[in-house]
């Protein structure tokens, strides 16, 4: 089992993640690195010409391998981790999945809970969805009267759900039902 743990640590290191990274973090980091080294970025541009193309291919290959190993073995190593002490990784990844799957109705507080479980700041939601901070708060608190017309709210909820990695149409449907009743 020690070998498994060591392999896991190495793979997480390749994806530039801490030892207690959650499965969601693994997925996000993988996607980010993969894009970085296959699509290019201003972060690579100034240094690229010093390194041969093979260097980049090698990096991508290692990232792919690490991700593949982690997706296949993550759960196993998580459970096998520090026995008794409830390892952070297994707890966090399990918790995310469990909590989200238990939510039946996506109202404001439910969205906030998902956001908090994922460790996403309000400011980051604002950045990626372009919804104003006040409206994100209104959405989470269910201040339906403070929110704009339905057509806008529909767009807000769809992008917020996307930002949290949730099933967009389902969340929109749940939320708008409450919104209409609450107005």
């Amino acid at each position, binding site marked *: 089992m020690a070998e498994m743990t060591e392999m896991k640590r190495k793979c997480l290191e390749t994806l*530039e993640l801490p030892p207690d990274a959650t499965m969601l973090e693994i997925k996000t980091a993988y996607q980010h690195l993969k894009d970085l080294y296959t699509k290019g970025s201003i*972060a690579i541009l100034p240094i690229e010409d*010093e390194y041969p193309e093979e260097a980049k291919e090698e990096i991508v290959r290692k990232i792919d391998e690490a991700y593949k190993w982690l997706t296949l073995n993550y759960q196993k190593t998580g459970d096998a981790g520090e026995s008794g002490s409830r390892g952070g990784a297994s707890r966090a990844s399990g918790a995310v999945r469990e909590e989200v799957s238990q939510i039946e109705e996506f109202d404001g507080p439910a969205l906030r809970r998902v956001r908090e479980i994922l460790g*996403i700041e309000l400011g980051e939601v604002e950045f990626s969805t372009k919804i104003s901070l006040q409206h994100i708060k209104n959405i989470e608190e269910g201040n339906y009267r403070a929110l704009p017309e339905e057509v806008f709210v529909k767009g807000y909820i769809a992008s917020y759900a996307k*930002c949290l990695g949730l099933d967009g149409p389902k969340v929109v449907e749940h939320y708008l039902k409450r919104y209409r009743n609450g107005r």
Partner: protein
Amino acid sequence: MTDKVEDKKCPEIWAVGGGKGGTGKSFFSSSTALCLAETGKRVIVVDADLGGANIHSFLGLKRPRVTLSDFFEKKVPLSDLQVSTGFDNLSLISGDLQSIESDSIKYTQKLKLFRHLRTLDADFVVMDLGAGSHNNTIDSFINADRMLVVTVPAVTALENLYQFIKNVYFRKLKAAFAKKGLKDRVIETWRNRELHGLSNLRDLVEHLRKTSEAMDDVLQSEVDDFRLQIVVNQVKSSTDIHLGASIRSVVRKYLGLNAEYTGYIRYDEYILRCLNNGTPFVRTYGYSRSAKEIETLTRNIINDRQVREVI
């Protein structure tokens, strides 16, 4: 914040560099110093941007009369150069050198400066190094306890940043070999890089490691010791926030060095307004998101934490 350095007698020295000018090194240095001071830590901000010192402006102060040139030329003790900033727990040592050229400071003088900085009665010394990749800047950077780089989401800034990091590492390698009596080994190897088939820093390090088993150990410990903390300033979108992670990755995977993405500060036009009004931004607009981000960032530095975002 944790009291990691409480039991230590000498202050922890932070060096703030990054190559390009105008990325916000002085703004960040003064702001993070104010954040530290607010938590009750005794902080001295040292404006080591010899020749271009302007931290005093960020603190709303006039150009101090006593500066590091008094230390270098007249042997005035550093503690006498500390000027009060008007903010609790925070004093300033200005680096403005009017009479002598900043490049003329000898290596021994720099070492002396560091020796004396460590005797100052404070918890933290935050050194703003200014732009450029001169040996002067680089040596100060290497000697510090924490190496912080500030950059902005612009390809030019990143170009200079990587150059700066490479220079820092190159100089560290040279010093490591010099200690073993192989003073010119690094530079000679690099000069003959075509012969050795080396095209970048990573190749060089790998080549040097093969010199001998002893050197392999020395280089391993050099690599292990080396730790950069990256700050991305003036972010305007989530793409910009993610750029910090990309830079970290490039430094790790291409340069083979240990880097951490410590934090970001979003662009706020009030930062410039505050500067021009002579009021420190983090105190005037303490509730703004940029100010909160600087607080988080300062905590991350002390606790060796990184930006951990999931979008």
